[in-house]
């Protein structure tokens, strides 16, 4: 496969899908009456098209959003978090948090059964958490979510105590995610390979049963008729309305859009920004766009490596990129430009950063002069002592084209060339990329890291999250203020403290110019108007439990 050919194919495909959307609009006329259909009805099959297929279906091992999103219907959690960040009972009816945040005691419901008939109780909680941290599980994410976990104690069948070696306030948030959901004891015994393969081996207690999976094609969830323990965050109780949810894996964007406009699927995720206008105009279709919580798509500047060890050079680069214009052009105006390393839908977002560091190439020039980069070479790049001002920003070949990031990168390169900074973008494979980037040999790293909690800032800025320790702190700096604030935020659930420290972290990140936020990722979901009640949870994942179909 030659890349040029596939790019041509893509361009053609986009063009064709544009035509198709137009023709779908003009042929409309089958708009269904909306009147008298506000009362949910049970029954029907909802088909959703998604762009990625899970590599592993094991919620305890996988890092993938798509795994957690689909499996949300199959697995329940201890608690549920609403979009304001408040926690509500789910499998736990109530809980006590120790004042030092080193232990959490949960009181469990006594009426919960798994779909294989096994009963949910304290021993199941212990078995699942112990399974997550066991090294055979090779957990890549859930184990991180358990933080400094030391163990789970079964106090009585309806009470468990989870303990940590250090204060760990983000635990409730972690416990609300699919990644810390519960397998039935029999499923756990089946072993990691079975869980990862998906299908009926993945037994949970959720509103749906994972009834079928055809690799490369689709996954099917069927209603669990006995479900009676929905969280307070849902809009109804009892069994789900839908008989069946079919999730189809359609990696080609124009095919997803076409399947939606032709009514072969009722919901399509990851609508490409260039199709949004046409889709909005199509009758019978709606577009939902929601900003993802957590880390934005940011550039991280390596403050430990020349020439970016000089804050003036970093600042010059930060102010020398026309973020507003670049993002608008590349994402067809669908993604908002970002001002903070975290998105506006994340709790404790610092709104005061908005507009505080506008594009200012004149300031950049002044800063570079001050930093001693006063020479100019034949290509127009700045030099100091005969050395060109060059920064290296490697790109990962397999991810380069995601959300047009390769094009955005070119725009950034062009902006920085204007202020005399050369940006090199070597195209690397995963192995070389990881060695270079995590070894701190790159000047700039781009990263997006969605998660519904400001504790994500700990991952970005705390020295405990240094890449050498398996973390993602790409500033490569050890900064006492960052460490103190993010540790403080992590060690408390006190809203006042968090509202104090987290904005300070965001502010300092921008001031030190170790981060250049580019855009907030937005979920663009198209849905037919026969679909009702489809909701997003706090992590912006579709939840099918409350969804129902208008009967025609």
């Amino acid at each position, binding site marked *: *496969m030659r890349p040029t050919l*596939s790019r*041509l*194919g893509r361009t*053609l*495909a986009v063009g*064709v*899908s544009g*035509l*198709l959307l137009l023709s*779908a609009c003009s*042929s409309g006329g089958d708009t269904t009456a909306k009147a008298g259909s506000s009362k949910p009805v049970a029954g029907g099959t909802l088909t959703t098209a998604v762009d990625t*297929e899970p*590599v*592993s279906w*094991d919620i305890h*091992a996988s*890092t993938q959003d798509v795994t957690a999103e689909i499996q949300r219907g199959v697995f329940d959690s201890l608690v549920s978090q609403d979009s304001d960040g408040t926690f509500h009972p789910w499998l736990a009816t109530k809980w006590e948090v120790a004042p030092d945040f080193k232990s959490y005691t949960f009181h469990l419901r006594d009426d919960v059964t798994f779909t294989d008939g096994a009963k949910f109780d304290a021993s199941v909680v212990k078995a699942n958490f112990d399974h997550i941290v066991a*090294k055979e599980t*090779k*957990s*890549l994410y859930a*184990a991180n979510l358990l933080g400094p976990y030391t163990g789970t104690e079964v106090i009585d069948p309806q009470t468990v105590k989870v303990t940590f070696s250090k204060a760990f306030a983000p635990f409730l948030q972690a416990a609300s995610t699919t990644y810390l959901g519960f397998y039935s004891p029999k499923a756990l015994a089946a072993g*990691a*390979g079975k869980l*990862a*393969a998906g299908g009926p081996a993945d037994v949970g207690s959720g509103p749906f049963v994972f009834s079928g999976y*055809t*690799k*490369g*094609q*689709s996954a099917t969830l069927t209603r669990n008729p006995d479900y009676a323990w929905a969280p307070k965050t849902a809009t109804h109780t009892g069994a789900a309305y839908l008989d069946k949810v079919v999730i*189809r*894996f*359609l*990696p*080609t964007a*124009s*095919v997803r859009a*076409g*399947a939606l*406009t*032709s*009514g*072969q*699927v009722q919901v399509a995720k990851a609508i490409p920004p260039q199709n949004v206008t046409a889709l909005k105009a199509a009758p019978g279709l709606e577009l939902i766009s929601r900003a993802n919580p957590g880390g934005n798509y940011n550039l991280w500047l390596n403050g430990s490596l020349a020439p970016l060890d000089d804050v003036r050079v970093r600042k010059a680069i930060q102010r020398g990129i026309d973020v507003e214009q670049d993002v608008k052009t590349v994402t067809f105006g669908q993604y908002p430009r970002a001002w903070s390393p975290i998105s506006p839908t994340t709790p404790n977002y610092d709104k005061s950063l908005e507009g505080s560091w506008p594009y200012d190439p004149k300031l950049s020039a002044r800063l570079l002069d001050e930093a001693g980069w006063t020479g100019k070479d034949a290509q127009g790049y700045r030099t100091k002592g005969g050395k060109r001002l060059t920064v290296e920003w490697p790109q990962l070949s*397999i*991810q380069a084209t995601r959300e047009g990031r390769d094009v955005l990168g070119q725009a950034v390169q062009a902006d920085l060339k204007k202020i005399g900074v050369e940006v090199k973008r070597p195209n690397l*494979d*995963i*192995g*070389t*990329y*990881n*060695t270079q980037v995590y070894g701190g040999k790159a000047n700039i790293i781009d*990263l997006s*890291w969605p998660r519904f909690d400001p504790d994500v800032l700990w991952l970005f800025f705390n020295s405990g999250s240094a*890449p050498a320790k*398996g973390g*993602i702190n790409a500033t490569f700096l050890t900064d006492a203020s960052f460490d103190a604030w993010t540790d403080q935020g992590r060690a408390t659930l006190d809203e006042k403290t968090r509202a104090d420290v987290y904005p300070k972290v965001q502010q300092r990140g921008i001031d030190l110019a170790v981060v250049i936020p580019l855009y907030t990722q937005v979920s663009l979901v198209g849905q037919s108007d026969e679909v009702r009640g489809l909701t997003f949870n706090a992590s912006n994942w579709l939840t099918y439990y409350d969804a129902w179909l208008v009967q025609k």
Partner: protein
Amino acid sequence: MTRSATGPAGRIAGHLGSAAAVLLGAATLAFLALQLIPGDPVSVLLGPSNSGSPEVRAEIAREYGFDRPVADQYLHYLGRLLQGDLGQSYQLQRPVRSLLADQLWPTMQLALAALVLAVVLAVVSAVATAGRRPGFRAVASVWELISASTPSYWVGIVLLTVFSFRFHVFPVAGAEGFASLVLPAVTLALPLTGVLAQVLREGLEAALEQPFVITARSRGVGLTAVRLRHALRHCAVPLLTLTGWLTGSLIGGAVLVETVFGRPGIGSLVLQAVSAKDMPVVIGVVLLSAFVFVVISTVVELLYPVIDPRLRSA
């Protein structure tokens, strides 16, 4: 007719020997490629944005034997292959053999449907137009050229747009029954049809100029009968060779077609494996392709004498 002492049995034994050599070569190349990938294999396995804890890394290294010398790894690898063990997928946590087995049937269905369609279309197009009026022939030739040179990715999207999104004749994706096989099979067959028809027409036209055609015609055999019974048989050998070779290439074509149509199969498996750097799966597919090529070329060679009596004497 004289037959050599070894006969067909000896021929088959010879084929099996060279087939084994081809497979060993493919296995060795795949192993070498794995060794040549830059970077630490454990990092490669863990994937991007993910450096993993030391415990996880040690577990992977131990499980896959990265701490042993390369020669040791190679022998161990060949030994495993001999037992039919293609290893374990790092990412999917499943044996590669069962993954391939699960995905083989949908691809076989697609490839067989495409092959039959391509051969039928090519024969019809060539027999109908060879040596006929130039205008007629030119039209056929142009459409064959277009179908041979259009990227199948694009053909697939155009077919979907027209027959699925616009007129709702066929479903968009999946492998559920005959209806969902039509568009992918047509997409995969078109480039094949173009090449086969062009070659076949050329062969037919050469055969039709041979003296035996005039002889046959003078005995009162009809024009169409001459084409089908005599001339077609003359150019069937190159057609067979080419078909065999192109059938092997269908696996490659399936990557694009399966992706566009959201079909399960070897193609979508290999795409996922390559993008996730799932090397055991990639190697498994390489070996499977080598095996398919060997099987096809053996079948083709065994078919030659059936078609052409002159090849029967050793």
